Each structure stands twice: as C-alpha cells, then as structure tokens.
C-alpha cells in the first residue's frame, strides 16, 4: 500500500483544468470551477424543469415538489436567521443547495468542488461580506463601526480579528472536512476494495457533505443574526 503516494496524488494533484498561456497562468481555471459550472447547470435544468408551467390550481406533482422544496429550504434558513434576517434567507438557501450539491458530486466519481480551497475561500468571503453588509444596512455605518467596541472597548482588536477569523474558519472547516472525508474514503478503498466503501460512502459522501453544507449555512446565518440584532 502506497499511502504516501495516494495522499500525494490526492493533495498535490494539478488542479488546473483549463490553462491560458499568458500572465503566468493567472487566468487558469481550476477543475473545481468547471465542476461547479456543471453543478450549476444541473441545478438550473432541474429548477427549470420543476418550475415550468406553474399554475395556481390543479398543480402538477413537479410543481408540488418545487413548492415543497422552496418551503422546506426557506423554513430551514428562516429558522436560523429569524425575522430580522428574513431578506437573507434566499441567499442562504442558494448557498446551502450549492454546497450540498457540490459535496454530492463525489457520488459520481468526481472530486467535490468544495475540496478546492479557492471555492471554500470564495464562499466564506461572500459570507463575511454579506454579514458585514447586513450589519451596515441594519445599523448604519457609524453604529456598525461602534459595534466593534462592544461590549467593551478593550476587545475591539478581537472583534477586528474576527473579521478575518470568521471567514477563515468557515473556509477551512468546509475544506478540511471534505478533503478529510475524501482521503478516508480513498484509504478505505485501498484497504477493502468492495462493499465496505459503499457503506462508508453513505456517511462520508452524503451525510457528511450535507452536514457540512448545513454547518456552513448555520454559522453564516448565526453571524448575520448577530450582526442585525
């Protein structure tokens, strides 16, 4: 068993899929980006299929499914955001679906886009921007700036540090969990090639992926809720 080789292959693989030959590869596009395009395309097609020909009465099954999905997902994010953050629930639904769908890509033999640090970094960047924007929108710039000195002036540096720590922890948590799950799955496949990996795949590819999506959205919602209070 060449565990070291496996890890090397998994962690140090060249992620670049589309290479542009100028500016020293600045515009290179990673595999994860292309994969998330695929995820977005599939989700878009699914949505278009579900919401085509919507009616008020005598609804079809697919419309009922669409309504159920919207209600349930909004229910989840509304439960986390509360009334104050009502306007952000739709975005949180999108993030939840995107991360969940991305993590499930592993089921189809692809490496999940969330295994690329750039993707999780972008997600957490969006989250922290949204959190601070929500805070500014709710309190106004002056009050938002003042809120860094709360509850005591002495912890102002901590609060400022949090601006960086929060997205970093979000980013690393998601990235680490997904890459950890993938590594464990690969090792399992090396040790027991049949049957056992299938059972563990249920946990690592489906359950863990969805849990991580939920955790990411839950924490972001928590921050937003804190910001708009």
């Amino acid at each position: 068993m060449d565990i070291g080789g496996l890890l090397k292959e998994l962690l140090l693989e060249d992620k670049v899929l589309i290479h542009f030959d100028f500016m020293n590869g600045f515009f290179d596009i990673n595999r994860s980006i292309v994969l998330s395009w695929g995820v977005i395309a599939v989700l878009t097609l699914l949505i278009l299929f579900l919401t085509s020909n919507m009616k008020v009465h005598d609804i079809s099954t697919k419309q009922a499914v669409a309504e159920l999905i919207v209600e349930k997902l909004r229910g989840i994010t509304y439960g986390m955001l509360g009334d104050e953050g009502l306007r952000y629930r739709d975005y949180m639904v999108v993030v939840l679906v995107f991360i969940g769908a991305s993590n499930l890509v592993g089921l189809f033999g692809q490496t999940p886009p969330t295994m690329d640090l750039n993707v999780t970094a972008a997600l957490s960047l969006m989250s922290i921007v949204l959190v601070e924007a929500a805070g500014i929108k709710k309190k106004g710039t002056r009050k938002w700036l003042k809120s860094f000195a709360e509850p005591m002036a002495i912890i102002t540096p901590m609060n400022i540090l949090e601006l960086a720590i929060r997205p970093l922890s979000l980013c690393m948590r998601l990235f680490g969990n997904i890459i950890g799950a993938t590594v464990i799955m690969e090792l399992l496949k090396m040790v027991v090639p049949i049957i056992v990996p299938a059972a563990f795949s249920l946990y690592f590819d489906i359950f863990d992926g969805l849990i991580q999506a939920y955790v990411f959205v839950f924490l972001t919602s928590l921050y937003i809720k804190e910001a708009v209070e």
Partner: protein
Amino acid sequence: MLNVSVMNIVWTVINLLVLYLVFRLFLFKRVDAVLQARRDEIEHAKDSVLEKEREAEKLKEDYSAKLRDADKECEELINKSKQEGYDEYDRIVTEAKDKAEQIIVEARHNAQIEAQKEKDAYVSELTDLVVRAANKIAVSKHDEESDKELYNKFIFEAIEKSK
C-alpha cells in the same frame, strides 16, 4: 494543495451570483408568484364572503323591521275596526233609545187624546141624560114620590154610565 488563485475565487463568486440569480428568477419568483396568487385568491374569497354576510345581515334586519311594521299596522287596523264597531254600536243603541222614547211619547199622547175623547163622550151622554131626565120631569106629572124616584134613577144611571 493550498495554492490560492484569485481568479478562481472570483470565478466562484461569479458562479454563486449566477446561481443566486437562477434561483431567484426561476425558483423563488415563480413559486412566490403562485403562492401570492393563491393568497390573493383566498383573501378575495374571504372578502366576498364577508361582503355577502354583511348583505345577508342587512336584509335580515330589513325584513325584521318590515315584519315589526306589519305587526304594528295590523294592530292599528284591528283597533280601528274595533273603534268603528263600538261607534256603530253606540249609534244604533242611541237611535233605538230615541225611537223608543218617541214611541212612548206618541203613545202617551194618543192615550191622552183617547181619554179626552172618552171623557167628552161621557160628558155629552151625561148631558143627554140630564136633558132627557129634564124632559121626562117636565112631561110627567110629578109629585114628591116620583121626583125622588126619578132623581134616584138619574143618579143610578149616571153611576152606571160612569162605570
């Protein structure tokens, strides 16, 4: 493994925004439109039901008011006819009383006239009797005895007549 590429972060941000737009345009907006239409319909139905209820309430009130009016009118009519009946009764009774009085007066008057007539007849008969008696006395010879007898006869006849 941990190489961060700005361009890829930007791409992911764009991806997310695109996905958000897709969700918003094709999922949330459509579903919201349907839900809103349904809510509006329910609201509309509720409004019209309330409106109908109000109308029914009003009609009911109108009818009960009309019914009350009809009751009142009915009572008035009954009272009026009762009053008329009493008036008629009074009028008839008064008339009858008047008539009866008149009849009594007439009867009394007639009786008086009758009595006068009888009295007159009696007086004239008495006069005749006196005249006849005087004639008899004058014709017949007369002494004390016959005078006395004649006188008694006359008294007797007069009494007999007056009976």
